[in-house]
């Protein structure tokens, strides 16, 4: 039982942890906090593995991450729950490609948005969540999600250059 749970859990972590770290980073703008939040969420997920599996793992763990970040916000101190200073992560090879020449424009603009607008835009357009799912995670109404989306996108357009906007033309029309 435990062995099967371990194997399933480890496979999930290997496959999904990079995406989850990215999600947490886009929510909080700090890789250390993002990593702490993902670790906390995954450790909690382990304890609720069977229950979460019956529902859906991805939405479940995303909700835990948002809650962990809110808890962190609430406590206003950032406890480090790092397992250790290991530099041998079990991550998919594609996640460690060198992309240093890539200009970080959109992420920088995203991180300048107010927190709730940013979270909604990330959930809607990066995590591809529906309005309903986003409202559930954000604990707000459908109308508020759509309002925050509109305002977040409008603010993004103001923050991005003409060329970046042109590149994202499909996204901004």
């Amino acid at each position: 039982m435990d062995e099967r749970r371990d194997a399933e859990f480890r496979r999930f972590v290997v496959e999904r942890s990079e995406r989850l770290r990215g999600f947490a980073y886009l929510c909080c703008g700090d890789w250390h906090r993002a990593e702490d939040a993902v670790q906390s969420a995954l450790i909690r997920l382990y304890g609720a593995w069977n229950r979460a599996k019956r529902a859906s793992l991805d939405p479940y763990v995303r909700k835990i991450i948002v809650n962990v970040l809110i808890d962190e916000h609430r406590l206003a101190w950032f406890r480090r729950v790092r397992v250790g200073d290991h530099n041998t992560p079990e991550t998919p090879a594609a996640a460690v490609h060198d992309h240093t020449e890539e200009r970080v424009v959109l992420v920088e603009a995203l991180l300048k948005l107010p927190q709730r607008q940013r979270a909604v835009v990330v959930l809607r357009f990066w995590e591809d969540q529906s309005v309903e799912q986003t409202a559930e995670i954000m604990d707000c109404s459908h109308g508020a999600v759509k309002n925050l989306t509109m305002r977040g996108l409008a603010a993004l357009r103001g923050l991005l250059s003409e060329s970046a906007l042109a590149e994202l033309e499909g996204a901004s029309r």
Partner: protein
Amino acid sequence: MTDEFSGRVDRELAAIRPPAAFTAAELAARGRRRMWRRRSAGMVACLLALVMGAVFVVKAPLWLGLPVGGGDAASPSTSPSTIMPAPRPDELNGGQPEIVLEVPPEGADLRWIPYSGPSVTAQTAMLTQGWWDLLGSVEGIELSRPTTDGGYEPVDWWTFPPVERRTQELGEASSGGLSPLGSRPIYKQQLGVRFEGVARPDDVFLTYYPRGSFTQGGRSVVDDPLSPHWRYLAPGCGEASGDLAELNVCEEYVAGNGARVFEVLAVTGEPGPAREEVRTSVVYTPDGNAIVISDWSPDSHDENGELVVEHPAAGFTAEQLTSLALALPPVIIV
């Protein structure tokens, strides 16, 4: 939209992402330890409860001055049961502690953050009944709740969303080293209310706040004219400019029963199809609590944030919201 946006963000994140400092095996080990600790704590708690229960059964007759060795007074069949009655209005102030918040540092950017999940209590159940009865007397509306496919479905008494108790904690909106400054319980419900002649429902929020946890009047946070500053329950009156011009119109008066009323009409967008309104009424009740009802008009945008429909001229007015709030029952918020 999603593909373009998502692909670009993926590429940019890949350029700046540091290596992870954990492995799946380590997380599984920590998860196992956490489960073990929780189970151990649960077993210790059960054991303690059993021991305390046994001690009580043996000692209680002595403490209470009752004869030891059975008898009617010790019989379970004659044990009294206590059911808490609903509070009378004159009991409210005595039954509810005032929320006292520390004074935050100057310039701190604070927000109320959802802390504990929803629960239903005797007080919220009473509110649910009162709110249902009250809305049933309003003509020309259909009550609904959100569905999983993004739409709404009509509700009856059995599916009417209950008013729920939640707690909020005051925390800093950006990263920093501030300690928590306080928390408060609230009673809250969200409902869809569709008005005749309008395709989509308004979102209507009912919230009760405990005395001492707010300042009367309205004020908005700096970057969001629709969101109240943490001390207040409604946005304030100000101006904004640019494509997302926002206008808040406020009115204050004293109602017939002595309750103070603060009403806000917040309008987002320039006049035209993208114009949306949020109407809010705050009633500061004589017991020191506050009832806030806000009505968000159906948004004019689809799920991608694009403009799709014209703004409907319907919904509760601020005066109607105030009338509803004044007719709601008083409760203890704990």
